Protein backbone atom coordinates (compact mmCIF):
# COMPACT_ATOMS: atom_id res chain seq x y z
CA UNK A 1 0.00 0.00 0.00
CA UNK A 2 1.37 3.42 -0.95
CA UNK A 3 1.52 5.79 1.99
CA UNK A 4 2.18 9.46 2.56
CA UNK A 5 3.19 11.35 5.70
CA UNK A 6 2.29 15.05 5.73
CA UNK A 7 5.05 17.29 7.09
CA UNK A 8 4.33 20.73 8.55
CA UNK A 9 6.76 23.24 9.99
CA UNK A 10 6.96 22.01 13.57
CA UNK A 11 6.04 18.37 12.92
CA UNK A 12 8.35 16.23 15.04
CA UNK A 13 6.98 12.69 14.79
CA UNK A 14 7.18 12.51 11.00
CA UNK A 15 10.28 10.30 11.08
CA UNK A 16 8.70 7.94 13.60
CA UNK A 17 5.61 7.74 11.39
CA UNK A 18 7.83 7.06 8.36
CA UNK A 19 9.73 4.30 10.15
CA UNK A 20 6.61 2.62 11.54
CA UNK A 21 4.99 2.54 8.09
CA UNK A 22 8.17 1.25 6.44
CA UNK A 23 8.52 -1.45 9.09
CA UNK A 24 5.03 -2.77 8.41
CA UNK A 25 4.80 -2.32 4.64
CA UNK A 26 8.44 -2.67 3.61
CA UNK A 27 7.87 0.48 1.56
CA UNK A 28 8.98 4.00 2.38
CA UNK A 29 6.09 6.46 2.56
CA UNK A 30 6.27 9.69 0.58
CA UNK A 31 7.03 12.66 2.82
CA UNK A 32 4.70 15.40 1.62
CA UNK A 33 5.45 19.02 2.49
CA UNK A 34 2.41 21.04 3.58
CA UNK A 35 2.78 23.51 0.71
CA UNK A 36 2.12 20.82 -1.87
CA UNK A 37 -1.42 20.85 -3.14
CA UNK A 38 -1.64 17.22 -4.24
CA UNK A 39 -0.83 13.83 -2.78
CA UNK A 40 1.54 11.66 -4.85
CA UNK A 41 -0.34 9.62 -7.41
CA UNK A 42 -1.56 6.30 -6.11
CA UNK A 43 -1.42 7.29 -2.43
CA UNK A 44 -3.71 5.08 -0.37
CA UNK A 45 -2.87 5.74 3.29
CA UNK A 46 -2.24 9.24 4.65
CA UNK A 47 -0.76 9.87 8.08
CA UNK A 48 -0.69 13.26 9.80
CA UNK A 49 2.05 13.04 12.42
CA UNK A 50 2.47 14.59 15.84
CA UNK A 51 4.41 17.69 16.70
CA UNK A 52 3.73 21.36 17.17
CA UNK A 53 2.78 22.59 13.71
CA UNK A 54 3.07 26.37 13.48
CA UNK A 55 4.17 26.45 17.10
CA UNK A 56 0.60 25.68 18.21
CA UNK A 57 -0.18 29.36 17.50
CA UNK A 58 -3.82 30.45 17.75
CA UNK A 59 -5.06 26.91 18.53
CA UNK A 60 -3.25 23.59 18.17
CA UNK A 61 -3.64 22.44 14.58
CA UNK A 62 -5.55 25.56 13.47
CA UNK A 63 -3.05 26.87 10.92
CA UNK A 64 -2.07 23.42 9.66
CA UNK A 65 -5.70 22.57 8.99
CA UNK A 66 -5.85 25.56 6.60
CA UNK A 67 -2.60 24.80 4.78
CA UNK A 68 -2.30 24.07 1.06
CA UNK A 69 -2.21 20.27 1.31
CA UNK A 70 -5.32 19.91 3.47
CA UNK A 71 -7.95 20.12 0.71
CA UNK A 72 -6.19 17.18 -0.94
CA UNK A 73 -6.31 15.23 2.34
CA UNK A 74 -9.99 16.06 2.81
CA UNK A 75 -10.74 14.96 -0.76
CA UNK A 76 -8.72 11.78 -0.21
CA UNK A 77 -10.68 11.00 2.96
CA UNK A 78 -13.93 11.53 1.06
CA UNK A 79 -13.01 8.64 -1.24
CA UNK A 80 -13.05 6.33 1.78
CA UNK A 81 -9.27 5.94 1.91
CA UNK A 82 -7.64 5.58 5.34
CA UNK A 83 -6.31 8.66 7.15
CA UNK A 84 -4.66 8.56 10.57
CA UNK A 85 -3.85 11.62 12.67
CA UNK A 86 -1.78 11.20 15.81
CA UNK A 87 -1.48 13.83 18.55
CA UNK A 88 -1.06 17.12 16.63
CA UNK A 89 -2.45 15.15 13.68
CA UNK A 90 -5.61 14.48 15.71
CA UNK A 91 -5.87 18.19 16.50
CA UNK A 92 -5.48 18.99 12.79
CA UNK A 93 -8.22 16.52 11.86
CA UNK A 94 -10.70 18.02 14.35
CA UNK A 95 -9.77 21.55 13.24
CA UNK A 96 -10.32 20.58 9.62
CA UNK A 97 -13.77 19.23 10.41
CA UNK A 98 -12.92 15.66 9.39
CA UNK A 99 -13.47 14.50 12.96
CA UNK A 100 -15.97 15.70 15.58
CA UNK A 101 -14.99 17.57 18.74
CA UNK A 102 -11.97 19.64 19.75
CA UNK A 103 -8.81 19.17 21.80
CA UNK A 104 -8.32 21.62 24.63
CA UNK A 105 -5.61 22.36 27.19
CA UNK A 106 -5.09 19.41 29.57
CA UNK A 107 -7.28 19.74 32.65
CA UNK A 108 -4.20 19.53 34.89
CA UNK A 109 -2.57 22.29 32.81
CA UNK A 110 0.69 20.36 32.59
CA UNK A 111 2.33 18.58 29.66
CA UNK A 112 1.85 14.85 30.14
CA UNK A 113 4.48 12.41 28.89
CA UNK A 114 3.97 8.82 29.98
CA UNK A 115 2.99 5.34 28.92
CA UNK A 116 -0.80 5.40 28.88
CA UNK A 117 -2.97 2.36 29.44
CA UNK A 118 -5.67 2.30 26.76
CA UNK A 119 -8.78 0.26 26.19
CA UNK A 120 -9.93 -0.63 22.71
CA UNK A 121 -13.55 0.44 22.61
CA UNK A 122 -14.18 -0.71 19.07
CA UNK A 123 -12.07 -3.64 17.86
CA UNK A 124 -14.03 -3.96 14.67
CA UNK A 125 -12.47 -1.12 12.67
CA UNK A 126 -9.87 -0.99 9.91
CA UNK A 127 -7.53 0.46 12.54
CA UNK A 128 -7.97 -2.18 15.23
CA UNK A 129 -8.95 -5.44 13.53
CA UNK A 130 -5.53 -7.06 14.06
CA UNK A 131 -5.65 -6.68 17.83
CA UNK A 132 -7.75 -9.85 18.00
CA UNK A 133 -8.84 -10.54 21.55
CA UNK A 134 -6.45 -7.94 22.99
CA UNK A 135 -8.43 -5.11 24.49
CA UNK A 136 -5.87 -3.35 26.67
CA UNK A 137 -2.77 -1.62 25.36
CA UNK A 138 0.06 0.54 26.58
CA UNK A 139 0.82 3.38 24.16
CA UNK A 140 2.92 6.47 24.95
CA UNK A 141 1.32 9.90 25.18
CA UNK A 142 3.10 13.26 25.08
CA UNK A 143 0.89 16.33 24.86
CA UNK A 144 -0.28 19.55 26.46
CA UNK A 145 -3.60 19.84 24.65
CA UNK A 146 -5.26 16.46 24.55
CA UNK A 147 -8.39 17.17 26.54
CA UNK A 148 -11.10 15.89 24.21
CA UNK A 149 -14.23 18.00 24.21
CA UNK A 150 -17.54 17.70 22.39
CA UNK A 151 -21.05 18.59 23.52
CA UNK A 152 -23.12 15.86 25.19
CA UNK A 153 -25.25 15.29 22.13
CA UNK A 154 -22.19 14.72 19.94
CA UNK A 155 -20.62 12.44 22.55
CA UNK A 156 -23.79 10.34 22.73
CA UNK A 157 -23.92 10.14 18.97
CA UNK A 158 -20.29 9.09 18.42
CA UNK A 159 -20.53 6.54 21.23
CA UNK A 160 -23.73 5.16 19.72
CA UNK A 161 -22.13 4.88 16.28
CA UNK A 162 -19.04 3.08 17.59
CA UNK A 163 -16.81 6.02 16.63
CA UNK A 164 -14.98 6.01 19.95
CA UNK A 165 -12.08 3.66 19.18
CA UNK A 166 -9.81 4.13 22.21
CA UNK A 167 -10.36 5.25 25.80
CA UNK A 168 -7.82 5.99 28.51
CA UNK A 169 -7.59 3.53 31.37
CA UNK A 170 -6.45 6.36 33.60
CA UNK A 171 -7.65 9.67 32.13
CA UNK A 172 -4.49 11.83 32.00
CA UNK A 173 -5.93 15.06 30.57
CA UNK A 174 -9.59 15.51 31.48
CA UNK A 175 -10.96 14.17 28.20
CA UNK A 176 -14.72 13.81 28.13
CA UNK A 177 -15.72 10.19 28.78
CA UNK A 178 -12.02 9.17 28.78
CA UNK A 179 -11.89 9.43 25.00
CA UNK A 180 -8.40 8.93 23.54
CA UNK A 181 -9.23 8.27 19.89
CA UNK A 182 -12.23 8.79 17.60
CA UNK A 183 -13.00 8.00 13.99
CA UNK A 184 -15.40 9.55 11.53
CA UNK A 185 -18.81 8.10 10.79
CA UNK A 186 -17.55 6.30 7.67
CA UNK A 187 -14.80 4.63 9.69
CA UNK A 188 -11.86 5.61 7.47
CA UNK A 189 -10.44 8.59 9.42
CA UNK A 190 -9.02 8.06 12.91
CA UNK A 191 -7.54 10.63 15.26
CA UNK A 192 -5.84 9.69 18.53
CA UNK A 193 -3.65 11.46 21.08
CA UNK A 194 -1.51 8.38 21.98
CA UNK A 195 1.41 7.62 19.67
CA UNK A 196 1.21 4.11 18.16
CA UNK A 197 4.27 4.89 16.00
CA UNK A 198 6.31 5.15 19.19
CA UNK A 199 5.42 1.60 20.17
CA UNK A 200 6.46 -0.56 17.22
CA UNK A 201 9.87 -1.84 18.34
CA UNK A 202 11.06 -3.64 21.47
CA UNK A 203 13.59 -0.84 21.86
CA UNK A 204 10.68 1.58 22.25
CA UNK A 205 9.76 -0.30 25.39
CA UNK A 206 6.70 -1.91 23.84
CA UNK A 207 5.12 -2.93 20.55
CA UNK A 208 1.44 -2.37 21.25
CA UNK A 209 1.20 0.12 18.38
CA UNK A 210 2.26 -2.39 15.75
CA UNK A 211 -1.12 -4.08 15.29
CA UNK A 212 -2.71 -0.72 14.48
CA UNK A 213 -0.42 -0.29 11.48
CA UNK A 214 -0.86 -3.95 10.56
CA UNK A 215 -4.64 -3.56 10.69
CA UNK A 216 -4.42 -0.55 8.40
CA UNK A 217 -1.71 -1.61 6.04
CA UNK A 218 -2.71 -5.22 5.77
CA UNK A 219 0.62 -6.99 6.15
CA UNK A 220 0.60 -10.70 6.92
Amino acid at each position, binding site marked *: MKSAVIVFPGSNCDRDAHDAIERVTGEKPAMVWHQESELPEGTEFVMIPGGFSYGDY*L*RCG*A*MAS*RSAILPAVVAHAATGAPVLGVCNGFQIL*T*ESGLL*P*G*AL*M*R*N*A*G*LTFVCEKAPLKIDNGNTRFTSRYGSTSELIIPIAHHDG*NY*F*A*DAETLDRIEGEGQVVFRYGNNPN*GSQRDIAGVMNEQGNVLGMMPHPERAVDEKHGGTDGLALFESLLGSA
Partner: protein
Amino acid sequence: MKAKIHVYLKPGVLDPQGAAVAGALHNMGYEEVTAARQGKLIELDLTGDDADAAKARVDEMCQKLLSNPVIESYSIEIA
Protein backbone atom coordinates in the same frame (compact mmCIF):
# COMPACT_ATOMS: atom_id res chain seq x y z
CA MET B 1 -9.44 50.56 10.06
CA LYS B 2 -8.86 48.20 12.91
CA ALA B 3 -10.85 45.17 13.93
CA LYS B 4 -10.78 43.88 17.48
CA ILE B 5 -11.95 40.32 17.88
CA HIS B 6 -12.66 38.77 21.22
CA VAL B 7 -12.62 34.99 21.19
CA TYR B 8 -13.92 33.26 24.28
CA LEU B 9 -14.93 29.76 25.31
CA LYS B 10 -18.61 28.98 25.04
CA PRO B 11 -20.58 28.73 28.27
CA GLY B 12 -20.47 25.16 29.49
CA VAL B 13 -17.00 24.49 28.06
CA LEU B 14 -14.67 23.90 30.98
CA ASP B 15 -11.80 26.37 31.10
CA PRO B 16 -8.94 24.87 33.12
CA GLN B 17 -6.75 27.94 32.57
CA GLY B 18 -9.48 30.29 33.80
CA ALA B 19 -10.02 28.05 36.82
CA ALA B 20 -6.27 28.21 37.60
CA VAL B 21 -6.35 32.01 37.32
CA ALA B 22 -9.33 32.22 39.69
CA GLY B 23 -7.52 29.87 42.11
CA ALA B 24 -4.38 32.03 42.03
CA LEU B 25 -6.39 35.20 42.67
CA HIS B 26 -8.03 33.49 45.66
CA ASN B 27 -4.64 32.51 47.00
CA MET B 28 -3.61 36.17 46.74
CA GLY B 29 -6.55 37.20 48.89
CA TYR B 30 -8.99 38.34 46.19
CA GLU B 31 -11.85 36.36 47.61
CA GLU B 32 -14.49 38.32 45.69
CA VAL B 33 -13.48 36.46 42.49
CA THR B 34 -16.04 33.72 41.96
CA ALA B 35 -14.91 32.63 38.49
CA ALA B 36 -12.46 33.51 35.72
CA ARG B 37 -12.71 32.73 32.02
CA GLN B 38 -9.74 33.26 29.77
CA GLY B 39 -10.08 34.26 26.12
CA LYS B 40 -8.11 35.93 23.37
CA LEU B 41 -8.04 39.38 21.84
CA ILE B 42 -6.97 39.53 18.21
CA GLU B 43 -6.37 42.90 16.52
CA LEU B 44 -6.33 43.23 12.75
CA ASP B 45 -5.23 46.23 10.68
CA LEU B 46 -7.44 46.51 7.61
CA THR B 47 -7.49 48.48 4.37
CA GLY B 48 -10.72 50.14 3.19
CA ASP B 49 -13.22 52.40 4.92
CA ASP B 50 -16.55 50.55 4.76
CA ALA B 51 -17.12 49.34 8.32
CA ASP B 52 -20.07 47.09 7.47
CA ALA B 53 -18.24 45.37 4.65
CA ALA B 54 -15.20 44.97 6.88
CA LYS B 55 -17.27 43.42 9.62
CA ALA B 56 -18.77 40.90 7.21
CA ARG B 57 -15.28 39.93 6.02
CA VAL B 58 -13.92 39.65 9.57
CA ASP B 59 -16.93 37.53 10.53
CA GLU B 60 -15.96 35.15 7.72
CA MET B 61 -12.36 35.12 9.01
CA CYS B 62 -13.64 34.22 12.47
CA GLN B 63 -15.65 31.33 11.13
CA LYS B 64 -12.88 30.03 8.90
CA LEU B 65 -9.84 30.43 11.13
CA LEU B 66 -9.88 32.74 14.13
CA SER B 67 -12.35 30.76 16.23
CA ASN B 68 -13.25 27.09 16.57
CA PRO B 69 -17.06 26.88 16.60
CA VAL B 70 -16.98 23.62 18.55
CA ILE B 71 -15.68 25.36 21.68
CA GLU B 72 -15.54 29.11 21.05
CA SER B 73 -17.69 32.16 20.41
CA TYR B 74 -16.48 35.57 19.29
CA SER B 75 -17.43 39.22 19.03
CA ILE B 76 -16.15 41.81 16.56
CA GLU B 77 -15.54 45.50 17.03
CA ILE B 78 -14.59 47.68 14.05
CA ALA B 79 -12.94 51.02 14.77
